[in-house]
């Protein structure tokens, strides 16, 4: 038997290429060819009427090929004059709004596209952009949730109160349960904006071939099929005329699932109009001000609980800052409102939210997608209950857990995919035991006392989450065994560095009994797999992994059928080891997979020794058609996986921090993670996802924010001032333990793992810093300066006060 690769630490097949700088990203596509380069004029105002755009100065600049404003779009392609699509409509999104590819008379955030320039190179294009003059009538901007709620000014004239959507869900009568509860608390909790900031920004290259009326587009996207459909619609092409290929993608983290970006349409439009390939590569400043942000939400919690800390009623209201537009619908706030519940089962639950417009960059999912906020709200609430009752924080959590024998557990709510929020499996008490052991929860009070005696402040934090992963509707896969015995696998969703080429190959190698090195995986190429959804919601392993497993299984069935025929054996007696099919116990009776592939495809022509085997005078029953009626030539398997609902992964993080008593600097002493994503396909890759997630979470909790001023200017639109952590700011080691509670929803028992690492960060750091400081942390992220201000507010003795008291003692 070939050793099973599923579950083992297989080295990533991608790494050689990536680490040696041989990745091929969208900016590498067609380089060295006569490609034109695009640049975009972006609004310098958060809110303004665009009265006139003067492009005359630019049109005859040497090297400039096109300058387009909104006025030009309809003539180029009628649908281009309409707003961009609202991708995920929802009945409660009564006032959904999307921008135009180029602003139609009004701009609603600094960075909104106004004009599109195509030139010989990006230098000339930027020079040209700098020469376009625009007459604006500046309108009052709405910045921040408070201003949006006050609605003194409106973002969109026809959206009263700046409210895009109001939504409510409940299970039971939460207000009544709270009113009847022995104890109650209310909390106000805030999370600020951040953003994905992948190393590679957005980028698109397009080539139009007029001879065959075909468009090829390369885009740095998380959904090639989505981009393809959007381009076809907006450029008035049939799907069959458009191919979208996703080259290597330097990170996505959610921002590249939103589509089509204006440039994703304008670039192919220009390629067709100008008859030359066109390229747009976003720069970092553009990424800050024109790609999406996330996380900004304000929450109010009312909770009622009993003497044990059991939550009897939970009533949450929150305000979601949607930015200027809602292209991705209400996915983020819906996820917050449902995933907030984590591993707990409150007696009754009500959640209400308003999704508000502001004159800032729009909000679409960023890794975690609303869950970090939900987790922060729930976990802060758990900590507050423990604090109020004087109980251990872990104990209060355990009291509220859904128990292992209660699965499937239906929360009585509707999740982001329009289906019931029903957890498939999990074991939260076991996770809690593991995390407590891993971080040293029970030993911590003694350590804290010991540190306090040395004048050092340490604190421990704990946060639990549940993540709905692997959402539908479907993914598909195509597995093709070549006559060389090598296996080509195609799945339509895209890859941004997760290691799909490795884990998918592991699955196929196991099913087909071939060496890993014989399996080649292609993702995100609509020429190879035109039906697909995309990479988001920790869904690739679950969705494409399952589809690939099913497709490979189909291919195997065909292999065994043909081999059984050739070997005159029974299918059930066959096994495939190292690419050779043989009769179990009679290894001399065998046939190579490649030969089976040859036999699967009856030939008229032979090209080599091997293919002679399949030609018309060698094989086949002359009395029957060469390809049976219900069969196809070739050794292929194709299948789709479309589950009833999401599968729910879970985990717990714990951190020990030290806060400097004088400078309020926050140091991470220990970080521990227990993670349950069902069966692990490749533990090393899962741990890599956790490491990256924790690093990103540290950024979100302690460093990053979008600093908008009241006029709507983003003050820190560069890596100089947007403080993404360096390697020096993230923990040097992360202790990880796994739990494997299989999902009953898919053949491999797997759950998603992509986003998990980042979900509990804000919650776990707030918990630990509160513990170190002795006062609640209700707003994240937190900087040393803010912690210092909180100390003053909470009248914690500061350096001056200490010194003053010392001085008084000395003089008295």
């Amino acid at each position: 038997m070939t050793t099973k690769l599923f579950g083992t630490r297989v080295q990533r097949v991608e790494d050689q290429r990536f680490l040696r700088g041989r990745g091929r990203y969208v900016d590498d596509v067609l380089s060295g060819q006569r490609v034109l380069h695009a640049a975009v004029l972006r609004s310098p105002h958060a809110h303004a009427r665009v009265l006139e755009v003067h492009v005359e100065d630019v049109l005859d600049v040497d090297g400039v090929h096109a300058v387009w404003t909104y006025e030009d779009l309809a003539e180029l392609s009628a649908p281009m004059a309409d707003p961009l699509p609202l991708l995920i409509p929802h009945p409660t999104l009564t006032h959904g709004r999307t921008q135009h590819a180029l602003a139609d008379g009004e701009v609603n955030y600094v960075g909104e596209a106004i004009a599109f320039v195509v030139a010989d190179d990006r230098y000339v294009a930027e020079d040209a952009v700098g020469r376009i003059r625009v007459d604006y009538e500046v309108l009052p901007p709405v910045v921040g949730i408070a201003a949006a709620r006050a609605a003194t000014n409106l973002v969109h004239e026809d959206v009263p109160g700046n409210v895009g959507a109001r939504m409510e869900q409940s299970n039971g009568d939460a207000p009544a349960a709270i009113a009847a509860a022995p104890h109650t608390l209310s909390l106000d909790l805030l999370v600020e904006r951040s953003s994905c900031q992948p190393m590679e920004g957005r980028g698109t290259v397009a080539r139009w071939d007029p001879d065959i009326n075909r468009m090829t587009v390369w885009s740095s996207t998380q959904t090639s099929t989505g981009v393809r459909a959007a381009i076809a619609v907006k450029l008035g092409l049939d799907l069959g005329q458009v191919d979208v290929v996703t080259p290597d993608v330097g990170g996505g983290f959610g921002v590249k699932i939103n589509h089509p970006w204006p440039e994703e349409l304008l670039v192919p439009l220009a390629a067709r109009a100008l008859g030359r390939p066109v390229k747009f590569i976003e720069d970092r400043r553009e990424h800050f001000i024109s790609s999406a942000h996330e996380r900004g939400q304000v929450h109010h919690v009312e909770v009622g609980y009993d003497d044990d800390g059991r939550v009897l009623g939970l009533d949450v209201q929150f305000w979601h800052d949607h930015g200027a537009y809602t292209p991705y619908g209400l996915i983020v706030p819906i996820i917050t409102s449902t995933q907030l519940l984590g591993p707990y089962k409150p007696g009754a639950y009500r959640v209400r939210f308003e999704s508000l417009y502001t004159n800032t960059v729009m909000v679409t999912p960023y890794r975690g997608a609303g869950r970090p906020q939900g987790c922060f709200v729930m976990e802060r609430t758990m900590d507050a209950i423990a604090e109020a009752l004087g109980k251990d924080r872990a104990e209060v959590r355990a009291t509220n857990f859904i128990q292992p024998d209660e699965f499937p557990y239906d929360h009585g709510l509707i999740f982001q995919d329009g289906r019931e929020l029903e957890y498939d499996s999990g074991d939260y008490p076991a996770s809690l035991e593991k995390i407590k052991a891993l971080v040293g929860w029970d030993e911590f009070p003694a350590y804290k006392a010991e540190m306090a005696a040395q004048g050092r402040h340490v604190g421990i934090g704990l946060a639990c989450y549940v993540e709905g992963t692997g959402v539908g509707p479907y993914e598909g896969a195509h597995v093709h065994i070549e006559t060389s015995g090598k296996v080509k696998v195609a799945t339509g969703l895209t890859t941004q560095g997760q290691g799909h080429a490795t884990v998918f190959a592991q699955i196929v190698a196991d099913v087909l009994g071939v060496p890993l090195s014989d399996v080649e995986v292609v993702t995100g190429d609509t020429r190879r797999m035109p039906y697909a959804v995309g990479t988001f919601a920790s869904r690739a392993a679950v969705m494409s992994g399952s589809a690939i497993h099913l497709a490979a299984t189909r291919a195997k069935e065909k292999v065994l059928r043909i081999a059984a025929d050739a070997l005159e054996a029974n299918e059930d007696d066959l096994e495939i080891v190292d690419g050779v099919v043989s009769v179990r116990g009679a290894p001399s009776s065998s046939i190579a997979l490649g030969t089976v592939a040859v036999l699967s495809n009856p030939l008229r022509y032979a090209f080599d020794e091997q293919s002679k085997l399949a030609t018309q005078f060698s094989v086949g029953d002359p009395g029957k058609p060469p390809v049976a009626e219900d069969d196809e030539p070739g050794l292929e398997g194709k299948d789709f996986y479309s589950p009833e609902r999401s599968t729910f992964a879970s985990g717990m993080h714990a951190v020990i921090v030290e806060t400097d008593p004088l400078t309020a600097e926050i140091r991470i002493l220990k970080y521990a993670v227990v993670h349950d994503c069902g069966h692990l396909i490749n533990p090393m890759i899962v741990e890599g996802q956790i490491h990256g997630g924790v690093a990103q979470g540290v950024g979100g909790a302690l460093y990053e924010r979008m600093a908008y001023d009241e006029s709507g200017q983003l003050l820190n639109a560069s890596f100089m001032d947007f403080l993404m952590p360096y390697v020096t700011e993230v923990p040097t080691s992360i202790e990880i333990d796994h739990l494997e509670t299989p999902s009953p929803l898919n053949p491999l028992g797997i759950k998603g793992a992509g986003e998990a690492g980042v979900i509990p960060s804000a919650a776990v750091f707030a918990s630990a810093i509160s513990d170190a400081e002795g006062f609640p942390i209700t707003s994240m992220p937190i900087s040393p300066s803010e912690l210092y201000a909180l100390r003053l507010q909470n009248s914690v003795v500061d350096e001056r006060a200490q010194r003053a008291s010392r001085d008084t003692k000395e003089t008295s």
Partner: protein
Amino acid sequence: MKPAPFDYVRPGSLDDALAALAGDPGAKVLAGGQSLVPLLSMRLAAPSRLVDINGLPELSGIEANDDGVRVGALARHADVLASEDVRRVQPLVSLALANVAHATIRNRGTTVGSIVHADAAAEMPMVLCLLGGSVDVAGPAGRRTIPADELYVGPLESSLHHDEIALSAYFPALNPGAGVGFEEIARRHGDYALCGVGAVVTGDTVVAGYLSVCDVPTVVDLSGVADADLGDAALEHLDPGDDIHASADYRAQLVRVLTARVVGAARKMAA
């Protein structure tokens, strides 16, 4: 993030470099490029000509003798930091340099470039002021020496003329029996500091230098001030501001904490 068009010249002699500068009022000197190139790419600066001085190897020397340290205009931060002679003659230079940016930037960026760039958040301008050093410059009218206390006239503004090239910076040696200290706090490792403090203690004389809490590098004489009051005494000469990374209050707290630590360290070294 592509610069606007500019002329580029890389002269082979100082005279040619001076002529190239004098010939274009929109010209700028290019040294390590670690401050200038980002400004160009973000189109925050659009000089009409760059005069690259990297073709003048005579400017790359680092000399350290009993009197002090002289650093040539092309000496990279990394080379100065690696010099054992520099560390021996004036340890404050090395202490502070270890806090300048990250290794990759120190490999290209020049110490003199940093000094004439005149950023009040940079380490080396403050060190030059604290030690009472100077900069030698050459211009169409010949050479002159600008003492540190005449070098900084405002935020990002030095008293160098447009047509002058800084040739070297000079840091006097540490006096026997004297001690120095340096510490700063930044949001991330290698970032520009929220507050940085250097100190020199010579007998009863205590002087401290400050960065990021004042418009220009600021030196304060703290001789005779009670230990507990050092920071507050310094704050009378400083003007910590609010920005997105820290409040003025917090920066003032850092002035107090760091002044006490750094003066303590300098005393310990002097003892």
